[in-house]
């Protein structure tokens, strides 16, 4: 077990390295000179040159690359000339916002999704089942940004119950988190339902029922636990998708997290900031995957990693 853990942790390093390299290369190919962007429209040429030198953009690519990697190893993600601040500081400043949003969305998705899935499975083919599966289908098909705009239209502009933008307090979290959770909620609901349905059919459940246990015990004791495993696995992977999905949602709700930072940085060709954000995303996703695998192995004794 420990050996597996160590091996997985070690494998994260080369993966992050590959991600950084891919992003690095992509963004050097992009048209648009960041030095010019920072200098602004009216800048004389010598100013643009000065900025370019300061950002290290006048060096050949491989030198820039090596320098950046060196900085990474020291924990220095560079300075964003666009913001006039250290990349690491900006990331740490904005990361909690995205984390807050992602966790809230995950919680909502889990609670609502599991509940709906369980009830649907136990009331198979009822009206509730039909409606909730309809909702689940919609959740997977509807584009997040559209859902966000519709929610703003109804709850913010129409009813005035909730604020439409920004971050500050629980009320501002509601609409963005619900929007972000929609997809996962749908997936979890369907997954839970089908997993439970499969398990309910299995023989040992019938045996348990025959033993005279109550309906509730049958459901919670057996079906749920076994249905939980695939749901957890999916959920873990989905968290990675959530981080990605948060980018668009943050844009709709002006949520000041990593997603909007990333979009902004890409628009301004802020290479250092984009690289830093990418590194952070990749590392977090990989760690989440590892965590999920560990939980998975803990839940299901049949799975053991050597």
């Amino acid at each position, binding site marked *: 077990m420990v050996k597996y853990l160590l091996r997985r942790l070690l494998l994260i390093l080369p*993966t992050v390295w590959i991600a950084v390299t891919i992003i690095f290369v992509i963004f050097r190919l992009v048209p648009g000179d960041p030095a010019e962007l920072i200098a602004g429209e009216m800048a004389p040429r010598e100013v643009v040159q000065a900025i370019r030198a300061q950002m290290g953009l006048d060096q050949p690519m491989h030198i820039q690359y090596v320098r950046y990697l060196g900085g990474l190893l020291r924990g220095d993600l560079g300075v964003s000339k666009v913001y006039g601040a250290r990349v690491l500081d900006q990331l740490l400043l904005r990361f909690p916002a995205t984390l807050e949003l992602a966790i809230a969305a995950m919680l909502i998705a889990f609670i609502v999704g599991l509940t709906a899935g369980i009830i649907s499975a136990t009331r198979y083919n009822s009206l509730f089942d039909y409606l909730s599966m309809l909702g689940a289908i919609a959740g997977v098909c509807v584009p997040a940004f559209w859902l966000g705009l519709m929610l703003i239209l109804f709850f913010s502009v129409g009813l005035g119950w909730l604020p439409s933008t920004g971050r500050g307090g629980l009320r501002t979290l509601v609409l963005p988190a619900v929007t972000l959770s929609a997809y996962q909620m749908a997936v979890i609901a369907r997954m839970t339902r089908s997993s439970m349905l499969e398990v309910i059919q299995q023989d040992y459940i019938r045996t348990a029922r025959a033993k005279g246990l109550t309906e509730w015990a049958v459901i919670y004791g057996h079906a749920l636990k076994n249905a939980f495993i695939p749901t957890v696995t999916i959920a873990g992977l989905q968290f990675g998708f959530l981080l990605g999905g948060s980018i668009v949602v943050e844009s709709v709700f002006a949520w000041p997290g990593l997603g909007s930072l990333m*979009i902004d940085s890409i628009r301004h060709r802020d290479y250092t900031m984009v690289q830093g954000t990418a590194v952070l995303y990749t590392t977090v996703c990989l760690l989440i995957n590892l965590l999920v695998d560990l939980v998975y192995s803990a839940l299901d004794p049949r799975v053991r990693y050597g």
Partner: protein
Amino acid sequence: MGEPASPGHRSDTAKPAGGKARGGASEPRYTAWLVIFGRNRMALTGLVLVLLFLTLAIFAPWLAPYDSQAQDLSSTVRPPSLAHPFGTDDVGRDILSRIMLGARTSFLIAVMAVGIGLLAGVSIGLISGYCGGTTDLFVMRIVEVLQTIPTIVLAIAIVSVLQTGIVSVMIAVGVTGIPVYARLTRGTTLGLKEMEYVSAARCLGAKAGRILWRHLLPNALAPIIVQTSLGAGQAILVAAALSFLGLGVQPPTPEWGAMLSRGRTYVTFAPHLVAFPGLAIAALVLGFNLLGDGLRDTIDPRTRRLTEKGI
């Protein structure tokens, strides 16, 4: 959708009634599938939706009431009326016509993007799974990275490099789809690699390529087909998101995501600019998803778990 598997429908226990037995795949299996599919109402709905939009996409220029580029600056942002059932947009174009022509754009992007992802992903997966060893390790690391980088970010990065336009969107969305096909194919390949008939073929001196093509591929095909439909839906959503962020097709090409993005400013007093394109996206994606689910249920209910885990 979600009906528990009844034992009688396990297709691979059906005896081949005729035709060549190709390493486990048998022709009549497909007939059985058609029957099962036909009984699945949800799947049929999906198929109908997809076909409906496909018809729109092909025949839009003749079906649309107005030219999608025809502007009327004197009647901008008008609510739905008899003359314009979906209203007009911010330069006075008919929204219904633009939605119909947008179907064309969406289909084009979906087909091309899935095509790219499929070809590249399946190839990578087959090679990686078959060769094994360090090749497998290296290739899968890259695939894992591609999967870890959030889809939108990767797509934005690629579009930024290639410059906005429909081709860039296709490539970008296609590339983001590669990991799923790669992992799917690799998983199936790994499992099948050790099976008897493959070893037998190898003993008989068959070359690697032949083995891949005639034995492994047909068996990996089933979940791939399922994924194609689901992937098409995904592609449309990602393309719409790109357009929403301003990185999609060039104006004035009608594209649903771009229409949504443009209509955003007016949402408080003219929500129809946003509502209809969004519904169009949802409807087509719904079609692809139902179709994909139906295919999945038809082929093997247990495949569901495999595709979602991406193993």
